[in-house]
């Protein structure tokens, strides 16, 4: 149905009080099996698609966003996982694809996909969030709906090989190996340096997401996953891992993905995505149709552990109450929360605030701005407010 679960035309009282109709789909056989050997959503859901926040001059170096307002639970279906590419989506033949592991290792090696699939594997549910997500709110409410404010965010079950397993295959790191350079085989040859000791326990080289092979736009046939780190470090179309003594200072870790502070200095190697949450329903574009009960539903996540608590306010932050966890909280994964709300028809301001297992509490925008100024671009994780008007409209204001 696209945005507006709550905005669906309400059935009229007359329609609801008439005898029930036997609908045409009850009296005529439906479509055969295998109408779609690989299934597709209902035609009534055609509005539920990725969207871009702007017209990008070069749509190969661009991003598209997950329609969070129309989603449920904690898993993002593969077709709706957000996109961020720096030189478009390559069509890679997996039979030709190779992963090289070299540099400060005992026995440099080249791996085919067949080799990688023959290593012990692991499956874990983790979110990926672009560090640029919600960057449009640094200067205050942008007016945009949640797909365009928070939609550089997805969560899948990833399957692949632990980085430590792969390093065993090259007989381990040697010498002063402290960092690892990950490089994509796309036309941007995307490259990031990562601190080995901070990722070795959990980084994975993955070939599957939500049960099937990676989608092209998510790195097919091979991608790095660094649970909790900013999205850009999860290098897609992975062709090379090089162990090195110091970071390479690539363009993606100097010119971009650095956080400029008010004094003109900039933070570098800002990896973890701090705890954050957002209400997805009701959210801008939804409309409350009648007074009464509404569940306030949203997502919470932390790059540093699990979500311990989500609080919700319906009075602009004057008072808070705990939300329920609607999905089991998992480490570095999206958690769905839900809180009860009776809408009395008056204007309201609804907010959510996450606390993670380290005790970190999602900050206000004021606190973030006073710590980092207004030029920091990335890693915006402040409490987000939506206004509900007396007529039921929901706005980012």
């Amino acid at each position: 149905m696209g945005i507006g679960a709550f905005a669906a035309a309400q059935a009229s009282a007359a329609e609801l009080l008439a005898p029930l109709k036997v609908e045409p789909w009850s009296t005529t056989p439906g479509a055969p099996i295998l109408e779609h050997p690989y299934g597709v959503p209902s035609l009534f859901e055609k509005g539920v698609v990725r969207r871009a926040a702007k017209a990008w001059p070069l749509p190969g170096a661009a991003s598209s966003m997950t329609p969070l307002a129309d989603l449920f639970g904690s898993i993002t279906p593969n077709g709706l996982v957000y996109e961020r590419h720096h030189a478009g989506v390559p069509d890679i033949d997996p039979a030709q694809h190779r992963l090289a592991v070299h540099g400060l290792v005992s026995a440099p090696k080249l791996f085919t996909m067949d080799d990688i699939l023959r290593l012990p594997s692991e499956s874990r549910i983790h979110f990926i969030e672009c560090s640029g997500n919600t960057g449009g709110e640094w200067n205050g409410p942008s007016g945009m709906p949640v797909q365009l404010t928070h939609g550089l965010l997805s969560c899948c079950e990833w399957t692949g090989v632990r980085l430590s397993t792969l390093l065993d295959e090259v007989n381990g790191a040697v010498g002063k190996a402290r960092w690892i350079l990950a490089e994509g085989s796309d036309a941007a040859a995307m490259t990031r340096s990562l601190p080995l000791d901070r990722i070795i326990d959990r980084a994975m080289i993955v070939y599957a997401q939500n049960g099937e092979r990676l989608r092209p736009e998510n790195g097919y046939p091979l991608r790095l996953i660094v649970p909790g780190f900013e999205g850009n470090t999860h290098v897609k179309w992975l062709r090379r891992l090089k162990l090195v003594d110091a970071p390479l200072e690539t363009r993606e870790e100097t010119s971009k993905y650095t956080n400029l502070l008010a004094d003109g200095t900039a933070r570098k190697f800002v990896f973890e995505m701090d705890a954050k949450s957002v209400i997805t329903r009701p959210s801008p574009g939804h409309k409350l149709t009648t007074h009464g009960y509404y569940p306030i539903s949203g997502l919470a996540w932390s790059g540093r552990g699990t979500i311990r608590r989500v609080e919700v306010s319906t009075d602009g932050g004057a008072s808070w109450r705990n939300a329920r966890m609607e999905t089991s909280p998992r480490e570095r994964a999206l958690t769905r929360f839900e809180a009860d709300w009776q809408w009395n028809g008056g204007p309201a301001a609804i907010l959510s605030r996450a606390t993670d297992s380290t005790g970190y509490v999602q900050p206000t925008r004021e606190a973030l701005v006073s710590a980092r100024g207004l030029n920091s671009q990335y890693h915006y994780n402040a409490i987000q407010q939506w206004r509900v008007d007396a007529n039921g409209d929901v706005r980012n204001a």
Partner: protein
Amino acid sequence: SHHLGTPLTEEQIAPWDIDVGPDGRGLPAGSGDVAMGAHVFASKCAACHGAAGQGLIGDALVGGRGTLASNKPKRTVGSYWPYATTLFDYIRRAMPFNAPQSLSADEVYALSAYLLNQNGIVPPGTILDKDSLPKVIMPNRDGFVPDSRPGKL
């Protein structure tokens, strides 16, 4: 170990081993000067980055010095980048956008020289190669600080 994968030599990996470190490790032989860089830039880069690198559909590559603490910071190669080696690494791997990895080492040295000169960092007569490029000190070299999280917002 599960004895999977094929041993890999330096010679085999060479075509992929294109990263350049801030100390110059990984830079290839070859050289290029500002004039040659201006020439290549006009034909292969200006369409996206503007005739003088001022930005168009591609990022601005010049200017912005002194703006980083202002409320309109302009981050460019000249005002923001800490290392000149990143220029070589990135142009070689990713530019021109429509034909990455198509430039010769000489062309990439020349483009680096040209962009550094446009930013007032090196003089017009500069010739860059694997020895001189890493020695270029970028204006914002000391402008970066480590992540203060967790602990401080």
